[in-house]
């Protein structure tokens, strides 16, 4: 690639390319910047701000901000980690999260981030909103109680499945996930094989009849924190393995 340059992330100098986001550049060098609304393979939108870093002192979303030559990025500072904690705690209290019976527990990115950030319990009072569950589809359940409005399903359905099954209505605290039908998911073109169904970071969109198949202890975040694979890949790279 032409015109490659370097940036530093938390004091480490790493390569980056024009147009590459801070998050992508960091990830390619084995530095994990927490994220929720961003997922590899879809267009970043900067909705959740969990990836917030300081770039040359300015507060930016690492998933959308392009890296520029000699940029100095801070990610793991006390200030930024504390902001991320607050954001994650707010996401918990804005929805209705009962991890003890949630099918996504152990592989949920919101929960995984809370573990990684060392959150024992949200410090804020819960809102306990009333949200709708849509179980109309034979193979998919949509539980808005757990939706964090990240938009990953929307973008995946639109850009990868070419379907536009999901969208948002309302603003601010009234924003909620809508489906492309008068009311029910069953009346949309959603299919259980859609990539959008697997794009949800939390237990808001789930495939039916799959619950609790992985024993506690073997689930992705039971042993290793979220982001560990990014960091492990870096170790492989340092030892001479290929960078992905």
């Amino acid at each position, binding site marked *: 690639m032409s015109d490659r340059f370097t940036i530093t992330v938390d004091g480490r100098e790493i390569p980056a390319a024009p147009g590459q986001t801070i998050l992508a550049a960091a990830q390619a060098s084995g530095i994990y910047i927490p994220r929720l609304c961003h997922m590899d393979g879809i267009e970043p939108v900067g909705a959740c701000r969990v990836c917030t870093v300081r770039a040359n002192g300015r507060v930016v979303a690492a998933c959308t901000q392009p890296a520029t030559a000699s940029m100095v990025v801070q990610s793991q500072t006390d200030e930024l980690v504390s902001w991320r904690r607050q954001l994650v705690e707010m996401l918990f209290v804005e929805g209705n999260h009962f991890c003890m019976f949630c099918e996504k*527990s152990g592989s949920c990115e919101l929960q995984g981030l809370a573990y990684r950030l060392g959150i*024992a319990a949200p410090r804020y009072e819960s809102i*306990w909103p009333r949200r709708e569950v849509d179980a109309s589809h034979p193979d998919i359940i949509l539980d808005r109680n757990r939706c964090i409005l990240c938009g990953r399903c929307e973008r995946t359905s639109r850009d990868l499945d070419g379907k536009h099954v999901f969208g948002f209505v309302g603003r601010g605290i009234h924003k909620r996930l809508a489906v492309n039908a008068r009311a029910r998911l069953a009346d949309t073109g959603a299919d259980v094989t859609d990539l959008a169904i697997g794009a949800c970071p939390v237990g808001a969109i789930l495939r039916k009849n799959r619950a609790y198949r992985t024993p506690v202890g073997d689930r992705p975040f039971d042993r290793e924190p979220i982001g560990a694979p990014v960091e492990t890949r870096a170790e492989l790279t340092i030892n001479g393995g290929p960078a992905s």
Partner: protein
Amino acid sequence: MSKPRIATCSLAGCFGCHMSVLDIDERLLELVDVVEFDKSPITDIKKFDGRCRIGLIEGGCANEENVAVLRAFRRHCDILVSLGDCATMGGIPALRNLVPIDECFREAYIDGPSTHNPAKIIPRDVELPLLLDKVRPAHEIVRIDYLLPGCPPSADAIWAAVTALLSDKPIDLPYQLIKYD
């Protein structure tokens, strides 16, 4: 020197966290060597006998009795630990927070599928503790010093926390011991 005292209570919980305390197995013997149990369902002691070093709180607060017990624990214990998701976040009992309280009463006493109540009476006896508007985590009622999530927290997590507190060390739980389920 007298042994430090531990008290425990189950507020709006299911006793699962207490089961997990018992689940420390033979380490219970080690524990009773170094501590004295005060007010606790484990000993069935109903009233505080003295100042306690540690109070383990299972369950959040669903009614005024829970609040009174929790406040008594705060008064009698140096360190309060919220034990489990109900104490730290409300847990399963907080499912009722999604339903207005009169609807809860109607479902419990009148409309429930297994309810026989032809006179449609909702009990209002003074003996019955008043329900709070919402089930609340313990730290919304009194100051809580430590939070130990889990449904229930594993016996290993409880052991690690209690032994650290007894030896005045910071609670430093390995990643694998912090769980919300």
